[in-house]
Every structure is written in structure tokens, then in C-alpha cells.
């Protein structure tokens, strides 16, 4: 049955019922603050029960306090139909076949009256309706695998995606795009790097920092860039494709294990850490930055390794951390712990006994750095040596998130201490690198004249 009072509850709901007025009803309201005319709109569930939302003739929304209402009368009814225009995606002979998996997230979202925020929405027709340029790039088919925000993505989704990618490659697709929320885009990118190996075609993860219901959204351009990378690019790896600068200029292709979201709201939030991005991408094509990468192939020899152990965690170390934190994790049955340690990979002495106990109980503990850039160097100070002696294994310059996902993936395959260490220490695609190039760490500080000059002239 249709919900006549969408989102209304408590007193507000009673008021609507009392005057026999529905959501989408054109209504005349007399209040102690004067008279109002408009269409009753649904109300967000988390908003209070003291107001009714009205769209007035000029298109604006206002709220009416129910305690001021003296009289209300429905004079008409017109339900809005919020729908992106759907058009069948045209097929063009000679263009690459690209598959787009939808998982939800900002790139394909629309208004949700339940929460008043945006929710994921997705269909191939909708996508073509809003970004018709895609048809000039590739022959796109789409499949909605889930509709969740990025923070709700997890092991189950990684596994389903890995399997779905395997099937598409089997079907002879030329490239794959995964539309994904941005918050945990880099977790998924790392997971797919481990689970989908020896890729013959590109797998491009893409999102947007501004929802596609905004005129200045980065969604359309990101989608175009990802279609070019997936359909035409030569780099057959799991990559993240997002804005290079905040301007509508070019995108970066980041290696799935070295990429991280670095700003809560900037468009150019994704950065490759400790290395350069793989390539830049514009509407004209992909331009490689890195000389060494996995090239596109004609075969279908992909390896799908869909494993994951969920009892894995990251511990972000802070001064005065108490050992009971580690004890509690062990007692809860955690099988693997990634520590994001300070400096070169350190924690304080009081935690030692807890770590020792954990390792003895068979928990696999690895060390990464919370500085994000740089390597663990646990021989430099006694602390590091002590920790290693207790069985904490350093992971060089592996990012904490990439390490967490990798440990889950490793423990999904084996619980043998040496085998786990071997898996962790053998890079699949640069989650640890032997070298850190000088231009892998560039965080310029504002205020310095030459930086200001650079920003003004070059950084659009």
C-alpha cells in the first residue's frame, strides 16, 4: 500500500491525519503566522515531528510548525516523479566492450526523502541519460551488484566483485569499471588487487566526491575518464580513477595498493603514496607516468582468489595505549592485527606483554607506519628490535589499509605463521616497494613564495 504520509511521525503525522491531508497534496494552511500555500512534501525520518514540509509555488521548500496551524485544506494532488531520463545505451561497432558494476555511492545517487540525504541509484539507462558522452567512448553494459554506501562495503562484497570480474573476463569484456563510494574505495581497490591477479584487462574503480545531482559534480568526468581507461587504456591492473587536480582537467589512475583518500571532501582527494600515480587520463586518452605496469593482453588467464578472514583489525597506536586493548582483541578471537605504529614502527613498553601473549596465542601481528609515507625500520631503535623479537613483523612501506585487507585475504587462505608471513612479505602489486622515489612524497606547504607561485601558475 502506498504510504500517504511518507516520513511523518508523531504529532506531525497526527496533524496531517486530523486535517485529512496527504503527502503530495496541494494544500492551503492557515497558521498563527499567516497563510501558506503549497504541496506537502515527504519528511526526512530523522527530522522532528513538529513541522510539515511544504513546497511553495516558487519552487522553494519551507517548514510549517504544527502548533501554529489553525486550519488545513487539501485542494489538489500531484505526485512528483523523480527519475533520471532513461535512454537505451547505443551500440557502436568497433568500440570496446566495457562492463560497469554498480555498488552505490555518490557517483550514482539521488535524493532520498527518507533521510533527506542522497542515496545510491543506478541503471544503465540513467547513466546514459545523464552522461551521454559515454556512448562515444565504449559500448557499455551495466550491472548493479549492490546498492550500498562505501562505508558498508566489506569482505562479502569484495568476494562477489572478484567473482563477477572473473566472469566478465571470461565473457570477453575489454575493460571493467566499478562505480563505488569514495570513502573505502582504496580498501576495495586493495582487496581486488589481491583477489584478481594476472589481469588481462583494466579494472577501474571510480567514484565521485560531489553527487551526480549537482551541476558541478565530478561524477560525469570521472566516469568518462574511467571508461577511457577501461576501454582504451593499456594498463591492465586494478586502479582507482579520480580527479588529479580539483579542477575539471584530468584524472589520475592510481595503483590499487598505493592509493588512499586523503581529504574528506576535496575532489582531488585520492593520492598515490610513496610513489607516482600510474598514469594521467583525459578524454583524449591514457598517458602513462610509470614505465613499468601490467600490459593489456588478449588471453583470459585471470586468477580469481576470493578469500577473506573477517577476524582481522587495525590498531592505531597512541601514547599511553594500555595492554588491555590488545588483550581484548585476542580474547574476542581476532586472528590478525595490523598495528599502525608511530615513527618507524613503534609502540610503548606497557603493550609489550600483551603483544607477546597475542603472538603466543597464534595471533598474526604486523607493523605499519601511521606516518603513511616511509618504511618501517625496526632495527633503528631498541623498541623496534624488542617488538620483532616478540614476533611482530614489519611490513615496510605497506599502507595500513592495504595491509589490513591483505592480512584478511592471507588468513582466508592459511593460518600457518610462516605461510602468512610469506604472503604478507611478497608484494602482489607494489603494496610494498623496494624503493621510494624522491617524488613519492610531495606535500608542499602553503605560504612559501615558490610554492605559492607554483600553485598560482600550475595547480589548477
Amino acid at each position, binding site marked *: 500500500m502506498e504510504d500517504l504520509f511518507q516520513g511523518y511521525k508523531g504529532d506531525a503525522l497526527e496533524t496531517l491525519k486530523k486535517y485529512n491531508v496527504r503527502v503530495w497534496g496541494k494544500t492551503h494552511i492557515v497558521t498563527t503566522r499567516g*497563510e501558506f500555500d503549497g504541496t506537502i512534501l515527504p519528511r526526512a525520518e530523522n527530522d522532528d515531528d*513538529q513541522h510539515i514540509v511544504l513546497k511553495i509555488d516558487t*519552487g522553494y521548500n519551507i517548514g510549517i510548525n504544527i502548533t501554529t496551524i489553525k486550519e488545513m485544506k487539501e485542494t489538489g494532488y500531484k505526485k512528483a516523479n523523480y527519475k533520471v531520463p532513461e535512454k537505451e545505451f547505443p551500440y557502436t561497432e568497433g568500440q570496446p566492450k566495457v562492463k560497469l558494476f554498480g555498488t552505490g555511492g555518490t557517483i550514482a545517487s539521488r535524493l532520498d526523502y527518507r533521510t533527506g540525504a542522497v542515496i545510491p541509484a543506478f541503471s544503465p539507462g540513467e547513466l546514459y541519460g545523464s552522461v551521454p558522452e559515454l556512448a562515444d567512448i565504449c559500448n557499455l553494459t551495466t550491472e548493479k551488484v549492490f546498492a550500498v554506501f562505501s562505508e558498508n562495503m566489506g569482505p562479502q562484497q569484495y568476494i562477489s566483485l572478484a567473482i563477477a570480474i572473473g566472469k566478465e573476463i571470461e565473457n570477453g569484456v575489454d575493460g571493467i569499471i566499478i562505480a563505488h563510494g569514495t570513502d573505502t574505495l582504496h580498501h576495495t581497490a586493495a582487496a581486488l588487487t589481491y583477489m584478481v591477479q594476472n589481469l588481462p584487462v583494466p579494472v577501474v574503480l571510480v567514484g565521485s566526491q560531489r553527487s551526480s545531482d549537482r551541476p558541478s559534480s565530478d561524477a560525469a568526468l570521472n566516469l568518462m575518464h574511467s571508461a577511457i581507461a577501461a576501454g582504451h587504456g593499456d594498463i591492465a591492473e586494478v586502479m582507482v580513477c579520480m580527479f588529479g587536480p580539483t579542477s575539471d582537467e584530468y584524472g589520475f589512475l592510481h595503483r590499487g595498493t598505493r592509493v588512499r583518500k586523503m581529504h574528506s571532501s576535496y575532489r582531488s582527494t585520492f593520492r598515490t603514496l610513496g610513489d607516482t600515480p600510474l598514469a594521467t587520463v583525459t578524454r583524449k586518452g591514457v598517458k602513462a607516468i610509470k614505465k613499468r605496469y601490467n600490459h593489456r593482453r588478449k588471453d583470459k588467464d585471470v586468477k580469481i582468489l576470493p578469500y577473506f578472514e573477517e577476524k582481522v583489525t587495525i590498531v592505531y597506536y597512541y601514547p599511553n595505549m594500555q595492554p588491555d586493548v590488545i588483550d581484548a582483541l585476542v580474547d574476542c578471537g581476532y586472528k590478525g592485527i595490523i598495528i599502525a605504529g608511530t615513527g618507524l614502527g613503534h609502540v610503548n613498553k606497557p603493550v609489550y606483554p600483551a603483544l607477546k601473549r597475542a603472538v603466543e596465542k597464534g595471533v598474526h601481528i604486523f607493523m605499519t607506519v601511521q606516518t603513511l609515507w616511509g618504511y618501517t625500520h625496526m632495527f633503528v631503535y631498541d623498541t623496534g628490535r624488542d617488538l620483532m623479537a616478540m614476533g611482530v613483523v614489519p611490513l615496510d612501506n605497506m599502507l595500513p589499509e592495504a595491509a589490513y585487507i591483505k592480512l584478511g585475504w592471507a588468513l582466508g587462505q592459511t593460518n600457518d605463521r610462516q605461510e602468512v608471513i610469506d604472503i604478507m612479505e611478497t608484494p602482489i602489486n607494489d603494496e610494498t616497494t623496494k624503493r621510494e622515489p624522491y617524488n613519492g612524497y610531495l606535500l608542499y606547504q602553503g605560504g612559501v613564495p615558490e610554492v605559492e607561485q607554483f600553485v598560482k601558475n600550475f595547480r589548477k
Partner: protein
Amino acid sequence: MSTKITPKQNYELTRQQIGYVDRRLATPEDYRRIGFKSGLEVHQQLATKEKLFCHCPCGVFQKNGDYDAEVIRHMRPAMSELGGYDGTALMEFKTRKNIIYRINNETACTYEVDDTPPFKINPEALEIALKISLLSKLNVVGEVHITRKQYLDGSIPTGFQRTAILGVNGHIQLRNKKVNLIQLSIEEDSCREIADVGHERWYKTDRLGMPLIETVTAPELVTPDELRETAEYIRFLNRSTGLVRTGMGAGREDVNVSCRGGSRVEIKGVAHNKWIPELSHNEAFRQWALLHIRKLLLERTKKEKWQVNHMELDPHEFKFTYLPLVECKEKQHKIIAINIPEFKGFLSHFTQPDQVFADEISQRLKVIACIEKPNMVHSEQEDLTISDHDFATIRTHLNTNNNDAQIIIWGPEEDMETAIETVVERCEMIFDGVPNETRKSFPDGTTIFERVLPGADRMYPDTDSCPIPLSNEYIEKLGKDLPQDISERIELLSKWAVPADAFHFILSKNIFPIIEEICERFKFDPKRVAIFFGHTYKNIVGKQKAHNDFNYRKLIGLFKFIREKGLHINIAKYLLPILFQHPSMEFNSMLTALKFKKRSLDELAAPIDFLAEKYRDIRKTDDKEEAANWIMGQLHKQAIGNIELRDLREIIDKRLQ
């Protein structure tokens, strides 16, 4: 029918045919004849410290070249809440502009360039706007909902303006008319445009995000003068709070105008109220002229039958001498000739003073197809830049009829499809009357095309912010702290017999409360004080720049001094210039500077007889009036500040009897 159009003659002829009158000669009857109808959207910046949705400072402005970084954006149309696309949105998308924002770190943060969601609405701004809503007798909403209003011209980097309605259905009382107000909204101000050339447009972001209110009147103003009075009234009302910004660009009006059978056309961003009458007058007659063209066209043909054809011209075939056409070869630009059937006499048809219908097409070519002017030549221009021979060849190629008109356009190949569409679309619109559009104004009272007028279809709830409830207690509290109505102030000024020419200055500078305070505290005649401000003070403000320390409190101090010292108010006029330049000087020293001496009426009257004697020696006539004038002149200076000059004159007149 004659075959050749003489553009100037045709302009004059059509100007007469539609009955265009100069505004200075126009009567209410003229406006009734063409069905003049108009309304206003009055924008007013609020004097807050910070911007509306972030913590950047307000009212700090930068020069065009003073920036730290640039950001480039493109705008795509997004759907409205009710599921439609907006007309302007689609037009703007057609133009494919690179929008470049210049950012100065002092005045813009990541919010302005849409890299950070909005912070909570500035409560100071909300409070000022609510006070003005109450003064405007609006029904204040129970809960404020922030809405996104799409603007794809790039004037806001998000592609939408965050705006919210605070009140609906209000009114103001003009001298002879009650004007209804549709609504008042609070919104963020937009960027300031730096330049717009071809496919690139530059903006600076200093003004972006400053709090602004928009008061919208009902479309019920029927003469340009009524429009102006309304604009002034709303400006005075806003300023009466003392909480709004003044100065260049702080108050701007959008003027909506139509004539009978016409359409709503919005003249955007009129900075001076005194321009409103001329602009609205010309706009109503422009529409009247377009409807005249429509009538003539419908006499000749039907929309269904009407078919435009065009062709590309090979520059080698013609002997073009007109530079823009000559350059096309080198620039590899395309030249397109278009035949517009049955349009003869229309391209040179009057639309506004010194503008003809062809200008409407040229302006759209610039805005929609991004082709800089000069961007066309046509068959009805005075200085035909294409030879008769070439034009004859073109006509033959296009297979034209005698009643047709031709337009030749040129530009980069990729823009020509849109350009042709633009020309055809504008001509075709004649069949339907006057297109809805926004127009940019010029000080001479004319306007040019700016954009297609957006509709309600561009509204979308702002999903980044929560509704803000307005409790009854809060609204009641604000209601207790309001200045009196402008209409009441006007009534009081009239009652005090203040000359009407003094009203404008007093209300526009919000001096009324100062006058009231002076009269209440120091018991002066309000008429005198009002005239002091409305004439004397206005005069000096217009001529000199005040010392930085000068302010209204100093003027209150002046009147306090006059009262305490037992001086006559007529000395205020003489003290003012000193105070204006030396606000820190002691009033007693000012008196010394004026060589003032305290004298009674008797003391001042004492020399009258002596002076009368003296006058007899130097007199040229026996006219007593002149004698009195001369004596008055001798005593005038000593009398100032001591007595009413009229009283002295009476005594002189009596003695001379």
C-alpha cells in the same frame, strides 16, 4: 512593394508604428495602452562579519589580478526535485564554457570552490533577514529549508545557489498604493565576473557566499515610476535596520517587466534605482515591438510553413573585403549564409533606442554559441559590408524570395551548428511572441540578452544541511526589536511639514532615528532638524569627503552642545563644515573659530537705528525692503546662534516703519 529596405528609415518607421514615446513624455495612459506590468526582486547584502555558509570574511574585495590560485569547472544540468530539467540549464550546457575561478586565500576557502560542504548557516545573517521579513509584514515560516537553485552560468562554483525562504505573503505601503510581497529569501551572493571571451569565462570569488536577502514583489506595478518608488521603499526598509551593507553593489534589483501579450523578462542586477524607470520603459516597448513583428509575420506566413535554409560559403568564390570575413580563410573558420523567409523589414525593425531585431540575434550568438562580436552581417544593415554583387550571388545560392532576409555568420567549425540553431531559434520565436529571458542593463536604459529565464524547475533540496526551526519565542523576541515602518516615517516627516525633497536622503541614509533622538533628547523642532539633515548635511556630503572619525554620534553631540550652551539651532549649519573636517575639535573652539559672541535680542537690535542712518547715506533707492535687507546683512552674522533671524527682521522692519 519596394524591394530595397532602407534600414534607418525602417527603424524610424517601425518606431512610430508601435507608438514608442520618450519616457520623459510618457503618460500613465501610454503604459495602460501597452499593458505595462512589472515587479521587483530586490537584493540586499547584509552587514555580517562572516559569509553565510563558511567563516570567510565579508565585504573584503579584490582586484581582478589579485589571486592566489585558479580552479576550472564545467557545469552540467542536474535534475530538479520534481524530476525536470531547467531550460536555462540546458542552454548553458550548450555553450560549453570553461569556467575559471580566481581564488584569493584571504576571502575564499575550500567551501567557495565546492570542495567542502557548507557549515551551519550564519546566525547573525539569519537574524537580520528575519527582522527584515517581519518589517515586510511577511508570514514567517516555521522551519527554514535550505534549497539549491541551479545556476549554470558558472557564477557559483557548485552550480547552484543555497537559498531559503524566510517569509511569504507580505506587503509594503507606498504613498498611494499597497504593494504585495510574494516572498523573502536569504541566499549566498554569487561571484563577480571578470571577463567572458569565447569559450572561457573568469570569475573572482571574493563576493561569493556573502549573505544576501531577496525581497520579491507581486507583479502589480503599472508604471516605471511606481516601480522606482517600490524599489526605493524596500531599500529604505532594509536600511532602516542599520544592519545591511551600503555602497557599490550592496543593493541590486532584478526588474521583471512585461507588456500586454508579452512575457516576463528579467532585467538583472540594476545597481541604481534611478535607472529603473528608463530600463523598464524600454523593455515594455521592446516587447511591444516584438509583438508588432509577430503580427506582421503572421500576416505573411504560418509557423508550420516557415522553413529556414542555410549553406556554407566558399570564401574563394567571393571578394570579401570585410575584415572578419577575410580572416576566416586564415583562421579556417566557416562562413554560413542563412535565408530567413518572410523576414524582410524585421531585421531593421526598432526594438529599443538604437537597437533593432538583428541585435537580438547577434547578442544570442555571443552568449549561446560563444562567438564574439562582430559575429554577423545581414541584409538590412546601413553599412553593408558585403558587396551587392556578392550578396546577389549569395541570394541566388540560397534561392531567396524578395520578402526574405539573409544573415551571414562565421566562426570555428565546432561552434557553427549551435550558431545556426541559435539564429533559427531566435527568428522562430517571433511566431510565439516574446521569449522569457534575463537581460543585462546599461546606464543608457537599454538592455541586451543575457540568458534564458530559469523557472521553478531548477530547485532542489540541499541535502548537505538540516532544516532550522524558528520558535515562536524567538520570532516574538525579534519582533520587539524593530524600527518603525518606512510608511510611518514618511507620514511623520509629512506631518512635521518637512519638504518632500528631503525625504529621500533621510530615509536612504537611515538618518531618521538620529533626528528622532536629537528631537527627543534636546527638544528641537523636528522640522528644523530634518531640514538640517535633508538639505544642509546632504549638501556637504555631496561635496566633501568627511574625516574618517566623523559619524552620526558626532552630529548628535553637536545638537547636545547647542542645547546645553543655549544657542540657537541656526548655528548648526555653520558648525557642520568644521565638525565634518575636524570631528575631534572641541565645540567651544569651533565657536571661537566662527568668532561667535553670545548676544541677546536687545543687544543685537541696538545698532539698528544707527545702521538705518548709515544706510540713508549710501542708499540708491528709498525702498524700505532694500534697507531692511542691508541692515539684516550687517547683523546677520552676529545673530546666528543667538536668535531666530526672523525675529530680528521683524524688529528691523518695525523700526524702519
